[in-house]
């Protein structure tokens, strides 16, 4: 059932589907009747002008916002209303628009926190440390070190992330999301505020992640060039409504999208 793309990657069946999501904050509608799906292995972009409801959409998927109407289906099952950490345990990881790293902790600890959903040794073993807890720690440390190598952040392993420059912080945040080894990775403007060089690096990471780990990625991005290059399919939101949904080419030529982005009568 997997259909190969031009570059030979495998796109599988539907991983996540949102159906008729409506979300409002005290009368203000942030999302109206949104439906779309994300397929296994693909890179899915969500675009739209400021205030279109993109981040709200990610927050709904992460379980941080609870929509008034609509359903979220994940891996073929309807998701009951759950707390964000339960969503994370199901295998959804994400980054944030404004960096949400744990500033008091080192890079290494931030990444290790990303693996929290996979670590299970209880308080007692943790207190003893020697034995099971240490073995678990080392096992996970190895996987995290792999990600550190992958992102090329070996030198800042022990640096508190609060002291790092912006670009590196973004990279660490990506690393933390990667460490979760999630089925679905949500990236909220991973390239915002970066210079060209940094953007190129970030694009490479995203493609590599998708390639190497086969991770499904949904991302929000403003840089159209990046979006068109990276993504397999794009969904366009405007004022909380879905404008268009399709491959980059389809979306680029959609009159409604052109109107929303460039204004009437250009």
């Amino acid at each position: 059932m997997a259909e190969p793309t031009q570059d030979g990657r495998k796109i599988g069946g539907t991983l996540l589907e949102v159906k008729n999501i409506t979300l409002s904050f005290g009368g203000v509608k942030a999302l109206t009747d949104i439906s779309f799906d994300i397929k296994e292995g693909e890179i899915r972009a969500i675009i739209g002008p400021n205030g279109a409801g993109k981040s709200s959409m990610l927050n709904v998927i992460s379980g941080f916002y609870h929509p008034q109407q609509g359903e979220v289906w994940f891996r073929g099952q309807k998701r009951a209303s759950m707390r964000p950490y339960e969503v994370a345990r199901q295998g959804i990881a994400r980054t944030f628009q404004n960096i949400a790293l744990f500033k008091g902790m080192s890079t290494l600890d931030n990444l290790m926190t990303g693996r929290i959903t996979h670590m299970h040794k209880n308080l007692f073993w943790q207190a003893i440390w020697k034995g099971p807890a240490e073995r678990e720690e080392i096992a996970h440390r190895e996987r995290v070190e792999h990600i550190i190598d992958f992102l090329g952040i070996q030198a800042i392993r022990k640096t508190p992330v609060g002291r790092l420059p912006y670009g590196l912080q973004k990279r660490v945040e990506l690393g933390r999301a990667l460490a979760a080894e999630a089925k679905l990775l949500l990236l909220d403007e991973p390239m915002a505020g970066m210079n060209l060089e940094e953007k190129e690096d970030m694009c490479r990471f995203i493609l590599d992640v998708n390639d190497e780990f086969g991770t499904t990625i949904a991302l929000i991005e403003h840089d159209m060039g990046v979006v068109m290059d990276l993504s397999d399919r794009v969904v366009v939101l405007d004022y909380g409504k879905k404008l268009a949904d399709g491959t980059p080419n389809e979306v680029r030529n959609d009159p409604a999208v052109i109107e929303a982005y460039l204004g009437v009568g250009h």
Partner: protein
Amino acid sequence: MLYRESGDFKTSYSADQQTFPIRLDRHMVYGILAFAFLVVPFLINDYWEKSVLLPFLVWAMAALGLNILTGFCGQVSLGTGGFMAVGAYACYKLMVAFPWLNMFVVVILAGLITAMVGVLFGLPSLRIKGFYLAVATLASQFFLIWLFNKVPWFYNYSASGMIAAPERTLLGIPVTGAEAPPWMTYLFCLTLVTVFAFIAHNLVRGRIGRSWMAIRDMDIAAEIIGVPPLKAKLSAFAVSSFYIGMSGAMMFALYLGSAEPSDSFGIAKSFLVLFMIIIGGLGSILGSFLGAAFLTLLPVLLKNIMVGGFGWPPDLAAHLELLLIGALIMFFLIVEPHGLAQLWRVTKERLRLWPFPH
């Protein structure tokens, strides 16, 4: 030149994750521990025990506990005094009900009981944050003190309302009561504090510690990446109260020998422990010790210098002592807002780079 990291290579993750990664640190800590365990017991007398060492150990234990909650998990609590009272009263009831029980077991059980109470009073933290939570925890402080005053069962219906620690022995040597030799009470407390300091270190460097720190640094993001806030916060309350309960039990049974709720565990104690961890350093095990040392030893030091050394009238000295402690607190916060532990860390970093600062 002596203090350095370079050349101290780690060849395994386990070596990199060890408690004191720098060789010199390691040697220093083991040296201090050896001195504390092997030399001090032969030098100790009543004065050093009751005025310096026991208070330091008891408060260090309490500071460790509060630092877990406030420093590592970011939940400011002013209920410490109340939880210490829970530990003390639990200890008393256990000592009286089970006279044959080993004192280590009694103190640890008292800690466990306090942990349960702590979880109960930690529940509001799921909704209330910051200073609102800090003030809300005062509710537990006032309520617990009131309870221990009001319900005679807690003090076994004694006419005075005081609780007094009966004599208990360990290996045939009294460890509580007036006959307990200073070295015994000292070693008892030192053992507990040392063991639980290492345990605290283990907890904060592993999964649980990271989930606490994640909640502290950014609770929403922590929840979204998979840290259950309920579990993280309540486990912090439980572990923290466990330590504080043990410190309360030690304070009652070994240090003071008798206690009364409002005198010994009043609101002033809650503030004192909070000062200790802020002065010492939030989120630092070493900081808990430094803070406890600073605030228990400094008053004694100032008093001895001013009254004993300069012969000033005690009342002037007492007022001046308050003034100086206040001034020193402000001074240290201006110099290094992140506490004595950070000051120490910065000094070490300088030392490490010396003589080539760049």
